[in-house]
């Protein structure tokens, strides 16, 4: 590093090759290989950093999609297709009432998916995520029913969920056991603990503990005012846009490749359009009778904050980088001096923390937590959401945004089929088909990209 600092940033190539004979000898092979690789590169490097114009960007992007690096495209297209299908079958689908209904139903599937991403990125799985969420929520509700302060109840519940998953992580890393088996034990034990805990917290209530705190109930039940909805949406788009623009500007100022400005502005515009549509629909009065109900549900803000926080954690911190590295090549990570056990346990704890938040969202939606909680089904939804969103089961690949989109797909299917009057049978079969389709698309795309 000492030498490279000295050679200076502006012209590293010229400064770094002191001996002309070396450069000349390297040139022929370099040039030759370069020609071969330009085509391959287009299929592998992000168009963000090698395209110079919008047209070129689109070209490279399309080549990448065909080469198997499809990113969020299949899930976005799938989501649009499903939404259009349901809208055609029932004009109620995109009505204000149903859209808000859908958002509140899908929210906990989305956050379950986000929880699972942390461990899937390591190439592990957490089957106990469902009951872990329920346990955390029951503890929070129990403390609230004992008139303890809200913050303490929430923090304790979340801490329990994080510790529960963290303990599983410790067992998995210390004893080198497969996460599948350890978290299966956590799943069974979690269910048993849930039954016992609810009876303890609300004796004689028939296995249900009620949520009476208005703040927590408002997460799913309440909405921001229309004005606040617009302000939040505009602020979110503006902040994200400002971040993207300044990041590009800083890269250019440092002589690094940056996405073409037109691409960045297009992305911001798309974000703004999506935001405006959601806020417009949610701002319509969806109340029945004389009560006016309007505005974007608070849970949207909760999910957005979680999405931003976890995305920053995964993409911009050491911890996140190491999670990806371990999922990609644990041996390489170990040789780089990374403490694998610590990162793995932390990832499990983050999965548990996100599950705890999910439990509160779930309880907020139902107004209670009961021993009917279907932790087995929800863990499968969690994995489905993550995988539909492009997360690999083998580790190293996946994004939080993907889990949000994947969770929305599961939520839309659930909501749409219910709206069409189709029951649980159709709902399970459709979710199964979409999950299969997502995995097949992913594997076909990747098979197409591997050189043979």
């Amino acid at each position: 590093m000492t030498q490279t600092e000295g050679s200076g940033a502006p012209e590293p190539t010229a400064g770094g090759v002191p001996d002309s004979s070396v450069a000349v000898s390297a040139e022929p092979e370099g040039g030759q290989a370069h020609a071969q690789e330009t085509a391959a590169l287009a299929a592998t490097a992000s168009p963000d950093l090698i395209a110079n114009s919008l047209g070129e960007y689109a070209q490279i992007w399309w080549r990448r999609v065909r080469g198997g690096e499809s990113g969020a495209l299949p899930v976005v297209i799938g989501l649009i297709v499903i939404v259009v299908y349901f809208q055609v079958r029932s004009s109620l689908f995109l009505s204000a009432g149903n859209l808000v209904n859908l958002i509140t139903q899908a929210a906990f599937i989305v956050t379950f998916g986000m929880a699972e991403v942390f461990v899937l990125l390591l190439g592990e799985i957490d089957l106990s995520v469902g009951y872990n969420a329920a346990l955390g929520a029951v503890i929070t509700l129990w403390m609230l029913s004992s008139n303890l302060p809200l913050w303490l109840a929430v923090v304790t519940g979340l801490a329990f969920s994080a510790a529960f998953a963290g303990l599983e992580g410790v067992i998995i890393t210390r004893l080198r056991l497969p996460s599948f088996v350890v978290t299966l034990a956590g799943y069974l034990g979690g269910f048993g603990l849930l039954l016992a805990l609810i009876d303890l917290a609300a004796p004689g209530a028939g296995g249900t503990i009620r949520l009476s705190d208005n703040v927590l109930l408002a997460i799913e039940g309440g909405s921001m005012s229309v004005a606040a909805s617009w302000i939040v949406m505009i602020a979110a788009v503006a902040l994200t846009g400002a971040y993207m623009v300044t990041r590009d500007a800083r890269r250019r100022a440092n002589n690094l490749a940056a996405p073409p400005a037109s691409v960045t502005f297009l992305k911001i515009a798309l974000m703004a359009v999506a935001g405006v549509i959601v806020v417009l629909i949610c701002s319509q009065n969806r109340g029945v009778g004389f009560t006016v109900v309007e505005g974007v549900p608070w849970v949207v803000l909760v999910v957005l904050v979680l999405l931003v926080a976890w995305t920053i954690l995964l993409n911009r911190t050491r911890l996140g980088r190491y999670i990806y590295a371990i999922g990609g090549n644990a041996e390489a990570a170990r040789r780089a001096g990374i403490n694998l056990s610590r990162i793995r346990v932390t990832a499990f704890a983050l999965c548990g923390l996100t599950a705890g938040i999910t439990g509160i969202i779930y309880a907020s939606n139902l107004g209670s937590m009961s021993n009917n909680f279907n932790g087995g089904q929800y863990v499968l939804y969690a994995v489905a959401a993550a995988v539909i969103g492009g997360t690999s089961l083998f580790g190293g690949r996946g994004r939080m945004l993907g889990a949000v989109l994947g969770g929305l797909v599961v939520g839309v299917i659930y909501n749409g089929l219910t709206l069409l009057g189709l029951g649980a049978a159709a709902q399970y079969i459709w979710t199964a088909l979409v999950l299969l389709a997502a995995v097949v698309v992913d594997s076909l795309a990747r098979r197409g990209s591997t050189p043979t």
Partner: protein
Amino acid sequence: MATPSQGDAGKGARSAEADRAPTGSPSPSAGTADADGQPLLRLRGIGKRFGPVQALIDINLDVPAGKVTALVGDNGAGKSTLVKSIAGIWQPSSGEIIWNGKRVHLHSPRDATALGIATVYQDLALADNLDIVQNMMLGHEVVRHGLLDEITMEKTAKATLADLAVTTVRSVRQVVGSLSGGQRQAVAVAKAVMQEAQLVIMDEPTAALGVSQTELVLSLITRLAERGPAVLVISHNLNDVFRVADRIAVLYLGRLAAVGPAAEFDPASVVDLMTTGTSSRLMNGNGENVTLRGSGSEG
């Protein structure tokens, strides 16, 4: 196995720490030991025994800084065992490792890394799902205000690659899984360089590479040594060895059959040494630098 005692172990770790400190500072005690002084790495009487099998016998080898030392030998000659002893993966049963004039004990790969010994493996060192910059900086990320400083890291990585004249990589934000074997090797080497390795060990760097990729890696090895670190290359391929090596060490059945400047050898004599442990064809004109050892050892 004759592993060092507990007290020895503690001392070893401490001496590794003590050695690390002065490398960056202009301290006179253990500065840069180059061609004039003692070599960077000196192996004295290294032996390694696996149960009844004596894998290495009395290896005496100097690895000087700024030079490419090639370690050649047939399968089972002990090349990997020797290299793993230097990389801290295995502890030698006897003999001593002298680093910058000080005896060191390497109990783990971490100890070796702390001294500045980097081993470049073709497949083990890189995560396919991370891009070139992320791989090169893995474990050495630059953090500002708690967040990764991608710009600084990308500039550092780019400058290192440019220094090594790695030109075939168009975007350093390319995922490593998409690179060719030669490019992967180049990234792995650049990673070692960036972490200021003083000794870079490369295990069969050109195995499984095509012609142009091999060229890329060979010119990279030459440029790497020109930058200052010692390079120790294990190879089967004598063509490659004679292209890049300044010094050649031949192992035969766990013994060092011969060691000396590459100019003193020719391919025929090296083949003789690799297969029989001795050679009558060594260029004897001024071949006094070549040390022949343990001639005609029994199986």
